[in-house]
């Protein structure tokens, strides 16, 4: 099951399918607002490899979590306990949905 964590203070964890929860750190809050972990895109001409994680924000769920925005934080995409994607948060846009652009 896919889930996402953003390192920092506090550590933030997001999932879409509750079956991912056993793999998550039980000491930190787990937020059921992950829509998509995105897809890793890279070309020979554009900027470096990047992907966009999207979170629910229809009712301000993400906005409440990100009063202090996480640019510069380390983000990982995990499949159960295996890291399948990682990078630095380049930008966060608190629209509906919330879009987090991550650069490898």
């Amino acid at each position, binding site marked *: 099951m896919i889930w996402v964590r953003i390192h920092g203070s506090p550590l933030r964890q997001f999932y879409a399918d509750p079956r991912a929860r056993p793999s998550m750190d039980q000491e930190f809050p787990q937020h059921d607002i992950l829509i998509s972990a995105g897809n890793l895109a890279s070309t020979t001409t554009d900027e470096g490899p990047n992907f966009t994680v999207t979170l629910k924000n229809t009712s301000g769920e993400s906005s409440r979590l990100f009063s202090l*925005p996480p640019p510069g934080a380390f983000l990982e995409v995990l499949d159960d306990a295996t890291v399948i994607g990682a990078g630095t948060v380049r*930008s966060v*846009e608190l629209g509906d949905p919330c879009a987090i652009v991550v650069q490898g």
Partner: protein
Amino acid sequence: MSLLSEPLPLRKTTVWGAFAAAGFIAHRYGVATGALVQYDATRTLWCWGDHASFSVDEVKVEGVAVSDWTWRNDVDPSGHPVTLVQFGQPQDPATAIVATGRGKMHPATGIVMENPADIAWDILANIAGRPVTEAQFSEFRTDCDRLDIISGGSIEDDASALTRVRQVCSSVGGIFCGEGAQLGRIWPEGAAVLPSVTVDYRHDMTPKADLSDIVNDLTIEFAFIGGQAQQSIRYECADSIAAYGRRTASISAPWVNDGRVAADVASRLLRLRARPQWVCAASGIRKRLSVGQAVTLNHPRLAITGDFVIQSAQNDFDTGLAAVTIVVPAGDAPAVTLAQQSLAFAPPEGQFVGVQTVGDERVLRLWSNAETQTPIVNAAVSLDGSAPRLTNGAGEVRFPIAMVTPGQHTLDVVTQNGNTSSTTILVGQ
């Protein structure tokens, strides 16, 4: 009246009837340094500004101060006031002849114009011929006075009024608000602005925070002569560097001559930019809004509330709706520190100063010639009026660290051959 985006209608030397070279006649404000322009065929009379000036205080030929000159305010053949420098001997037009003085005076009060608000007003109203009143800069003027911000510089080319006024404002950490009732503001950390409207759930808003907006190592280049910065000052924010890595930026401040003002601008900007910022684009606001006004933010899309100055605005004439952008810093303003003293890399007489901390002493090293770095030996160096100490063979002189605390100091130097200079230095931690 010219458009804001059109070249400033500066006069050229061709208006004198006889001229050595066709070129713009400069306008000088505050303490300014700029090249003299040959005014007559005898090569003894030279022009410093296209207006009456408060004073001309120093003239240098090829970087060396000379004394065989007087200055006066006069009128040119067209009846226009000019500032002239009269030499005792003809000067070679091929040499660099530069004067420093205090420039244009306020047309009503006669006081030298060095408040950025007065300079911006004069550019718009008296050079560009725009219908702009001093009252439209009153809040900017008051804020500059409150922060003791003074400005100085020259207009030597015909860049547009908009370019020039924005440059004056941004040099001192301010913004030009072309559509507002008030045309200038100090931002960030300017005086509070009464909000015009509340941005809330009724409006569309998308906050965005980008890593590239964070700057935690900021250099201000200032004290420009002939388009080149003569000094710089660098501030940094250690907490932000630890969190986001060192992210540098450099800003040109061609209308700042004073290290104290440069330090104020750098620290104000860094307290904003060293932390993450939400750039919030809000739309659907039923009110005409303009840059420099403020809005109260209380929107479910962002868990930060408060009053914020509008950075950009669009007003749709058809719908009557406005869209604005505001910048909302996240977290508390961080502590910023002076990281590097402002080194005059081409101060008077080609003298250079470096400062190092060794144990409980500050070692000041003086040298001439940027390339060879020739030590200035046996020079008497006085710090803030202290008893003079002599530089050694390496051009070094030592002072207790207690005498050279972080901040601004005055260095008076008398060299072996009797040349004197007084330089302001800024010392870091």
